[in-house]
């Protein structure tokens, strides 16, 4: 053995990423920190002939509900609140269970990891909504929409948690059982 590089794809070989959990925690904490201003500050700055208004993530969802767009409100709520928060909880659970060398629920934990990996990117929906609205609604005096600072911190939060999920070495879930035998 002793090979350092994969002979097929030329990637560096490593049995386990020993710093996996450190990176997971670091990116996750950065993601949680960025998620706080994303909810406090406005996502969209709207000005029309009569009024200027600012809406936060939750404010935008409430507005959609009041408009009667239930389906869309649910999609935005799922993408901007349920998925990010669910992801924080899932990654914390996975990291802690690996640290405790837990031997239980491997299949469930693996499923949770797959779901987190797959679904995390979809949180970006709200950032793209802001991008399109700000580009489209630029009608001089009648109505203009501009992005708020929350769009930036929300995008950062999504990117950080994606990196956190990617840093997690899913093989660690199965290692406890292998070494205890």
């Amino acid at each position: 053995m002793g090979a350092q590089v994969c002979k097929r794809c030329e990637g560096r070989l490593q049995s386990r990423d020993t710093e996996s959990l450190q990176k997971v925690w670091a990116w996750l904490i950065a993601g949680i920190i960025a998620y706080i201003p994303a909810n406090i500050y406005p996502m969209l700055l709207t000005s029309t002939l009569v009024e200027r208004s600012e809406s936060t993530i939750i404010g935008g969802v409430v507005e959609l509900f009041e408009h009667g767009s239930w389906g869309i409100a649910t999609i935005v709520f799922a993408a901007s609140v349920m998925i990010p928060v669910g992801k924080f909880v899932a990654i914390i659970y996975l990291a802690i269970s690996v640290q405790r060398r837990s031997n239980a629920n491997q299949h469930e934990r693996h499923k949770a990891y797959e779901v987190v990996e797959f679904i995390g990117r979809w949180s970006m929906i709200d950032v793209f909504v802001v991008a399109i609205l700000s580009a489209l609604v630029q009608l001089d005096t009648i109505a203009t929409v501009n992005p708020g600072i929350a769009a930036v911190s929300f995008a950062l939060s999504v990117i950080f948690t994606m990196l956190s999920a990617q840093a997690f070495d899913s093989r660690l879930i199965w290692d406890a059982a292998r070494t205890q035998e």
Partner: protein
Amino acid sequence: MTMHTTPLDDLIACPQCDTLHVASALPDNVRAHCQQCGIVLVTSQPAAMARILSLALTAFIMMIAAVSFPFLTLDAGGLRNATSVIDAVLAFNDGYAFPLAVAVAFFIVVIPLMRLSALIYALGPLVREQKPRRGARKAFALAERLRPWSMAEIFVVGVTVALIKVAGLAAVTIGPAFWAFAGVVVITVLKDQLICRYSIWEALDKATN
């Protein structure tokens, strides 16, 4: 132990849980799953390579159309504003949000185009049964690594949400670029379902030797 008699090249380690499997030739249109965690390890699809290449070429051309043609047009109170995909990217182009403009440009245009060109570069010679180009392995590895960062499909859902938000406020006309973009998304999904990393690496190996 049979483990010792199996040559290293015939073993597959599951990329997600590291369980070792002995690779065997699969009949056509069959999927091999990991025994431990259940993810798909190998799919055997005849002619997948040619299909992947043609879908990648189609998506590439449609992506060029999607960035060049008008995307959406808004009419309200005698004023009109036409938006392209590039304008959507540049929406964040003021001061503090500039890095976000760059990120959005990468997520919805640059990374999808990079993935498509890397695939076309790596698989093109294989389909014509020639030797792989230099760096074909690196290109394919890059295309796979970038997969989670290619967010064209999420952008399309975002656009739909935005359209519904604006619908009450003004009249929106959907331009040809919107349909081109939606096409890119559908074709990319079809293409990614056809990609079996194991088979493509095998093919790259065979073509090199």
